């Protein structure tokens, strides 16, 4: 009996030991939304979805949550590529001052940045390089061989078009790397999980980009032509616009000017059926991506308060610029009666230096600062009194003075969507100082403002305004400037002057018959305020910084360290 028990127990132990096995260790993801790279692409739509992430990489900080970055970075909202790209191109000029104390902001603002990684550099550098890597991976996964292997040859042509678009985005990201950082690491498909990429010189990258873009705009290219894909997807014109922009700055990148090429590609885009939108302000409203208002957009980044969320981009441009007083003065001015707000929130950070306004803009009828301050104080007092009135009737009696925006808009440039609160020179320590920009006020083209508050349960804090990477006026400026550059910096060419005239007509300004480069760029300073163009323009004008080393930003030190010597830092850092 005892022997039997022993036998049973011992064999039971042995059995259990054998049954449990080490095969369990081969686990695979359990979520239905997770998959291995081998089987990620299952149908035509999955390829489009793969492309969508590359296309969204200008404003998405992760695939699932606008509050969580998919790269390791201090702050998700401040890690958006577009937001920091704007900072790197406007904050470093007088066109933008930011009153928050972040060190990267003051470093860029005061031209004291060093080779130490700051949040703006990290965001732009990392996101561009990740965008490039995403495009590389997409190209790896969509080769003919792979399609055949998966049995996806039926929609081979569609995928070919997606590949062309992915290559365009890769060009955009590399273009930003070339423009901002000069000599980035150069990674193509084979570098994923492979050898460390090598550094590419700025002129060489220019040549690579030119070749790649010329191929994309060629007739044989699968890149869609205008009309083949709907807004906001890029088409051949976007590639041409990028070429035009690159040629305009070619001298900066390569030492050799390419004015004729700049003109050529700008003209090709202009002549492809775009038109100036009659109302300038509507280009920056929350419905600017709709057919009502996107007639001059060549390539834009889509934002939507519900479905394409971001705490950067146009949300920052809007809420970042507003304070409470500004809302109270602007709402009546803009005819917003039912609600007193024309911004989603009031972050009170973005300002415009009065010097910049005086230097570049045709602004008239400016109230002197002291009078203005009194106007603002009176209005504030009335608002305060009204909000504390004991009864609604009493509140009704209190009239809030409408104080306008501090200058006479009827005799000024109509693009100056500015106002002031009575404090002159911008100072970080006076949060109401400087001019304030309401270009991105939270309105829609029907004249209504975005409703604040959670009553109807919308994502009202986020902007739906799209951001145009390329709009038609830029092509006008490129054409005109390139023509001027070809003619001792002054253009009298009817087409060139006509383009600028069209823009100035829209702004309610007269146009002389000849235009210098300075005059063209001065007009552009008004037209393109806070659209990420100013740094390039100042560099081309030669006025950006006396230290030419600062004309490119430093490479990321952490990337250099991770590379073990494949990269060297830019000169002067």
């Amino acid at each position, binding site marked *: 009996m005892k022997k039997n028990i022993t036998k049973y127990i011992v064999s039971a132990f042995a059995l259990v030991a054998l049954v449990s096995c080490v095969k369990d*260790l081969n686990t*695979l993801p359990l*979520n239905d939304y997770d998959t291995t790279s081998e089987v990620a692409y299952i149908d035509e739509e999955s390829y489009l979805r793969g492309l969508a992430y590359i296309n969204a990489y200008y404003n998405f900080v992760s695939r699932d949550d606008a509050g969580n970055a998919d790269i390791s970075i*201090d702050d998700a909202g401040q890690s958006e590529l577009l937001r920091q790209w704007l900072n790197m191109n406007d904050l470093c000029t007088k066109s933008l001052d930011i009153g928050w104390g972040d060190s990267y902001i003051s470093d860029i603002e005061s031209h004291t940045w060093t080779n130490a990684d700051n949040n703006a550099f990290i965001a732009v550098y990392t996101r561009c390089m990740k965008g490039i890597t*995403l495009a590389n991976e997409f190209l790896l996964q969509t080769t003919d061989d792979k399609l055949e292997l998966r049995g996806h040859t039926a929609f081979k042509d569609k995928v070919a078009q997606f590949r062309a678009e992915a290559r365009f985005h890769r060009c955009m990201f590399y273009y930003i790397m070339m423009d901002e950082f000069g000599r980035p690491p150069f990674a193509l498909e084979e570098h994923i*999980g492979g050898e460390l990429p090598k550094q590419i010189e700025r002129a060489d990258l220019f040549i690579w980009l030119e070749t790649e873009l010329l191929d994309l705009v060629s007739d044989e290219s699968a890149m869609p032509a205008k009309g083949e894909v709907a807004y906001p997807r890029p088409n051949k014109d976007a590639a041409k616009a990028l070429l035009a922009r690159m040629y305009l700055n070619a001298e900066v990148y390569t030492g050799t000017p390419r004015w004729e090429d700049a003109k050529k590609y700008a003209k090709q885009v202009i002549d492809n059926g775009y038109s100036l939108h009659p109302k300038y302000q509507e280009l920056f409203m929350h419905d600017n991506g709709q057919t009502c208002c996107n007639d001059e957009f060549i390539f834009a980044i889509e934002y939507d308060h519900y479905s394409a969320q971001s705490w950067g981009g146009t949300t920052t441009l809007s809420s970042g610029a507003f304070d409470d007083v500004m809302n109270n003065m602007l709402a009546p001015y803009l005819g917003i009666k039912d609600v007193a707000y024309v911004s989603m929130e009031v972050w009170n950070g973005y300002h415009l230096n009065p010097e910049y306004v005086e230097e570049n803009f045709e602004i008239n009828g400016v109230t002197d600062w002291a009078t203005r301050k009194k106007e603002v104080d009176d209005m504030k007092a009335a608002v305060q009194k009204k909000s504390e009135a004991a009864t609604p009737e009493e509140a009704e009696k209190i009239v809030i003075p409408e104080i306008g925006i501090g200058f006479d808009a009827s005799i000024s440039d109509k693009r100056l969507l500015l106002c002031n609160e009575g404090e002159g020179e911008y100072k970080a320590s006076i949060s109401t100082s400087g001019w304030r920009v309401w270009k991105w006020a939270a309105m829609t083209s029907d004249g209504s403002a975005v409703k604040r508050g*959670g009553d109807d349960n919308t994502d009202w804090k986020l902007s739906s305004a799209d951001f145009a990477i390329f709009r038609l006026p830029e092509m006008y400026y490129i054409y005109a400037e390139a023509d001027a550059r070809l003619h001792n910096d002054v253009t009298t060419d009817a087409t060139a002057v006509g383009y600028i005239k069209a823009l100035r007509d829209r702004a309610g300004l007269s146009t002389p018959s000849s235009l210098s480069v300075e005059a063209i760029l001065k007009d552009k300073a008004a037209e393109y305020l806070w659209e990420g163009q100013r740094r390039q323009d100042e560099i081309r004008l030669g006025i950006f910084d006396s230290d030419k080393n600062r004309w490119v930003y430093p490479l990321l030190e952490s990337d250099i360290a991770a590379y073990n010597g494949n990269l060297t830092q830019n000169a002067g850092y």
Partner: protein
Amino acid sequence: MKRILTALAVLLAACVTVFAQGGYQVKGVVVDAVGPIIGATVIEQGTNNGVSTGLDGDYLIKVSSADAMIEITCIGYAPQTFKASEVPATVLLSEDTHFLDEVVVIGYGTVKKSDMTGSVATVKADEINRGAVSSPDQLLMGKVAGLLVTPASGQPGASSTIRIRGAASLNASNDPLIVIDGVPITGDGGAGMGNPLASVNPNDIESYSVLKDASATAIYGSRASNGVIIITTKKGVGNRIKVNYNGSVSVKQNYQFFNMMNGTEYAAYVKENYPMAADLLGYKGTEYNTNWQKEIYRLGVNTDHNVSVLGGGVVPFRVSLGYNLDQATVKVGDNQRANLDVSLSPKLLDDHLNIALNAKGIYQKTNWGNPGAIGNALSFDPTKPTRFPEGDAMAGTIWNWYGSTGDPNTMASVNPLSNLYEWTDVNSALRSIGNLVLDYKIHGFEDLRLNANIGYDVAKTSGEKYNQLGSRSAKAASPDKATKYSNFNSNVVFEMYGDYSHDFGWSNLDAMLGYSWQHNYVEYNNIDYLNKDPRWQEEDYYNGKNDKKEYYLVSFFGRVNFNVLEKYLFTVTVREDASSRFSPKNRWGLFPSAAFAWNIKNEDFMKNVNVISQLKLRLGWGRTGQQDIGDNYYPYLAKYSFSTSPNMMYDMGGQRYNTLSPEAYNPNLKWETTETFNVGVDFGIKGEMLTGSIEAYYRHTFDLLNNVSAPLGTNFSNRVIANVGDMVNKGIEINLNYNIIESRDWHWSIGGNATFQDIKITKLSNFDDTYPGVHVGDSMGSNEGYSSLYKKGYAPYTYYLYHQVYDTEGKPIMNMLADVAGATDADGNPIPDGAVTESDRYLTGKSPNPWMYYGINTHVRYKNWDFSINGHGSVGNYALNKVRKGYSYSYGLVDSSAKGYINNLNKSFLYPDWTDVMSTAQEYSDLWLENASFFKIDDINLGYTFNIGKKWMESIRVAASVQNVCTFTAYTGLDPELPSVTGVDSNFVPRPRLYTIRLNINF
């Protein structure tokens, strides 16, 4: 030693049944070599009939007959047995040399204390005097050298941080492995079950074994890098059913407040210095004077009730039921917990088959409250009323900053009462831990034992979070979402080992070989609905997240203990572990250990050295592994994810699509390994009057699982988890206990332990020594940022800050930080580059890690009275006082008044001339770095035991205690003992003081 033992025996005897039945009477005296023994137990064998000896060692017992067997026992002495008729008048008990051979629970078995080679500290739960204890970790605070328990914040249900010999990992988990009755507990129990130790009722704990060095922990291999805490729960014993009730009631008081301006002071300050903000003072012309800190706090109550029933016999059993209610001192927030613990331990087949069945069930309900109220109570304008006054459109509702159109100002601070009363965050959690152990000694070959253990740890939690409809917070949310979530965690373990043990006379061999399989599964669901009435309607679905994942661990392990002549002890262990988190080629890790101990006292030459009663030298070496990298269970796998969020879709030309994207991965990931050396000496002097141990350890972690910069262009993130870096962790631990007075009525002892530690990262990049380091820590501002750097040559979380510049009077100048970085001159001194930038930050050499931490305690007993004080402290730990930073400058009034609100200021922290916007550099100034060394008196306890000795009741103990008595520190914040590992102090829920009355009844 005898005196201590005597004293212990008295205490013990007090609990022994004392009643006699008629029959034969025996009386006499029990003595030892020195004199009478007080409290020795005289018992009639096979019955409950027994007495204990009195002050002169005398006793009188009535037994059933002259033939009854009488056993005389006393702890520390060899027991003696006589026939009742043959008991000598004076019984001489001799010291039991095996007294020290207390059995210690170690991994996969037990070992006699004298045979132990590794560094293991044991704490018996009933040795601990205590006040209100709602989680077992609290019992370990300050008790063991090398074990640092940082108590949780004052939020009920929050978990403490436990570190054994410092942190060994940078990115992987630093929590020790917790094993409860043989079941390894997962640290990730889901929301509401985050504290693995909270899953066991403190009243059910028999003992803790804290395994510190690798020779002790390596048998647990993969999860043992951070040490192991083995908890053994109480089991059924004895031969009659015993019932115990243990209960306490505590009052919790929040006793520390920040020195904020009151309404009058604040109004005067604003009017004088910031007239532009004066409009915003008061409400409708009335300036109120509200003390928001008073408004949010209350007296909390903690009450705890436990009943246990235990008994021996054929099926020894123990059943216990516990209930704990813990109320926060913040007005909203409490935690309720019910525990059920059942254990059965029958022995079958002539005691050859030992079965242990343990099952624990925990139900916990937590109302988290909203800790945001604590910060807002400091900031909120004190000139405002708590609620809108009578006659107002919003009369009676909580006052908040609204704009002129009645919409909430989303930038403004929130009334702390809104945080408390307009937010619901509730959670309920069910968890069960249990196992079945079969231990079979083979018939006919009793040296071989087979042991199988099937265990589980399953937790299910669910909760809801939402704003009250129509409240300020609901209106300010974008959109206002109500969240429902649930977690399911399951951890199943199967282990088996065979153990062969043989006594050769001159030596003793114990060899063990085993196998372990473990499966961990986690499921998480989170659904946001639009917050409407009624809630949770399908049509209000907003978005959802869910995640399912699992990992497996498979291991083979073995151990050999070899004991020669009770003098030389050898232990060798080997464990081979595999984790599914690594690719097949890196999956297996080998974790060996070896240890040697020399029982010097047992050598002939020491036999006559009477002053030394115990002396042992221990040497150990071993390796352990780490694979707990956190959330990512498939880090080596190239993975694609389809986005499911409706908020992150992109318009691809007329239609919006969710995206598909590859994720960063590292196919080369492998085990992080910690190598440990340990040297220890255990000693006892003057008959155990002074006992203690001194140990030195050296831990070297290599292949650190680390979040490092990835070369861009090669992977899908700028950081990937990789095995990069080394860390060294050295320390000396001292543990001493001294019995100052040991007499008939008096006992007074002082115990203490201290740990000196030094932690340094010794390598952080595979490429380059100039690697700039990894940003870690917390933000000091409102945006995210980092306070510390991981860098070679420095301790983890070493603060990375700017140098503050001071004026001639020593006052700090706002936004003046030293410009130190730039090129260096011929002498190597830095030449400033003219601007203060990131490169001017420096590694302060200071970190949240103390260089020394210690615990001390003293116990006094006089007759039935007992009294104890426990304290603990640390030296050399620094903290960044973010609260002080937040209230040091008044520029906030400028900025916030432009946004339509104002915030209060602090009288102690405000620099009057700091009126500018604070730069990031100023936020990360070393001005905020403070020495947070402290000493705390944790508790003072006083108790009295009534020995009833009746059939229906044995004894009653009544005790009173004060916890969190006081703190000695130079730190200017409320509490220098920060719950955050990063050392940034940002308004955690304060730990209250507790006044407790405890009642313990033994039936």
